[in-house]
């Protein structure tokens, strides 16, 4: 409709079709919501909503299937990569992705993610690293930083007792089957935009059958960190980014590769 001064009103941004209308149960300011949005936007843009199957984890994003407007399965805790493998093998022309938290992927599901990557399983993994077990109320995750207080490390993560944070990009990039392994952050607009590009790339890697792709997203959990949404993003930037360097850890030769950062 043409408006004043010969200008027309143009819709620049609205909720992607790959998300349902439903309000999420996430806490205010939780970056799970941003991740959902980015994935949905990418799937919208690729025109794959009807040919994508998602696998939800056990974690705060357990109800992801209520928010993504596409076929979805709910996995057992940590087993999403195995479930996705089953789905993908029998439906190779569907896009299959898992959406997993750090407890789910790096702790209980460590074997499944390692082997999915090792097999070069042609799936995409969206990995939400918020350095905590969100859903169960804030216990230590494998990615919890040294010294970080959680409900199961009340005096801060003691590396003598609980060891060091696991760096999943670094580990999985060692796998020959891994095609695209990158880490991005959601702590500000610029980084969110980069994260979206990486998600797009990851799904394209799958579409082209190049192999296993994973995008790790440094994320916030204001509720269990006990700070505001904005403070939480600052915490991501100031504490998580140094501990989990952003970058492209593995980019298969046949990908029109992006650069570090």
């Amino acid at each position, binding site marked *: 409709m043409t408006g004043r001064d*010969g200008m027309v*009103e143009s819709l620049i941004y609205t909720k992607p079709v790959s998300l349902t209308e439903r309000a999420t149960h996430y806490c205010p300011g939780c970056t799970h919501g941003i991740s959902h949005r980015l994935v949905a936007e990418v799937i919208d843009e690729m025109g794959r909503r009807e040919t994508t199957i998602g696998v939800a984890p056990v974690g705060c994003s357990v109800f992801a299937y209520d928010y993504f407007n596409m076929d979805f399965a709910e996995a057992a805790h940590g087993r999403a990569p195995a479930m996705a493998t089953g789905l993908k093998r029998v439906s190779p022309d569907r896009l299959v992705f898992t959406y997993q938290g750090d407890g789910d992927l790096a702790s209980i599901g460590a074997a499944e993610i390692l082997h999915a990557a090792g097999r070069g399983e042609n799936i995409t993994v969206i990995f939400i690293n918020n350095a905590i077990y969100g859903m169960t109320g804030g216990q230590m995750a494998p990615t919890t930083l040294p010294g970080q207080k959680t409900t199961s490390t009340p005096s801060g993560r003691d590396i003598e007792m609980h060891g060091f944070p696991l760096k999943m990009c670094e580990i999985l990039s060692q796998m020959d089957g891994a095609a695209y392994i990158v880490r991005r952050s959601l702590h500000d607009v610029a980084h969110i935009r980069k994260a979206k590009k990486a998600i797009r790339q990851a799904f394209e890697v799958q579409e082209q059958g190049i192999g296993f792709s994973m995008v790790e997203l440094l994320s916030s959990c204001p509720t269990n960190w006990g700070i505001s949404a904005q403070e939480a993003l600052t915490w991501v930037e100031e504490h998580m980014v140094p501990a989990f360097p952003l970058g492209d850890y593995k980019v298969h030769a046949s990908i029109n590769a992006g650069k570090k950062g």
Partner: protein
Amino acid sequence: MASGYIEIDEELCKGCELCTTVCPKDLLEMALDRFTPKGYHPAELVDPEGACTGCAICSVICPDAAITVYRFVPAEKAGVS
């Protein structure tokens, strides 16, 4: 003259305040006078001078996809309809 505006869906907004920190024009504020059905103060566009550019930065950070962004573009640049 505003070159854009946004709408915030109060069913979705959880009052996280993130959008208010990123708007380059500082046009977003929390509506402390009311609660959303979920009990939050929603964000709102306060743009008396029509400064919103429709840059969509606010929507990039909104975790709840609560923000819809419109921009006024020259008719010739706009897509069909």
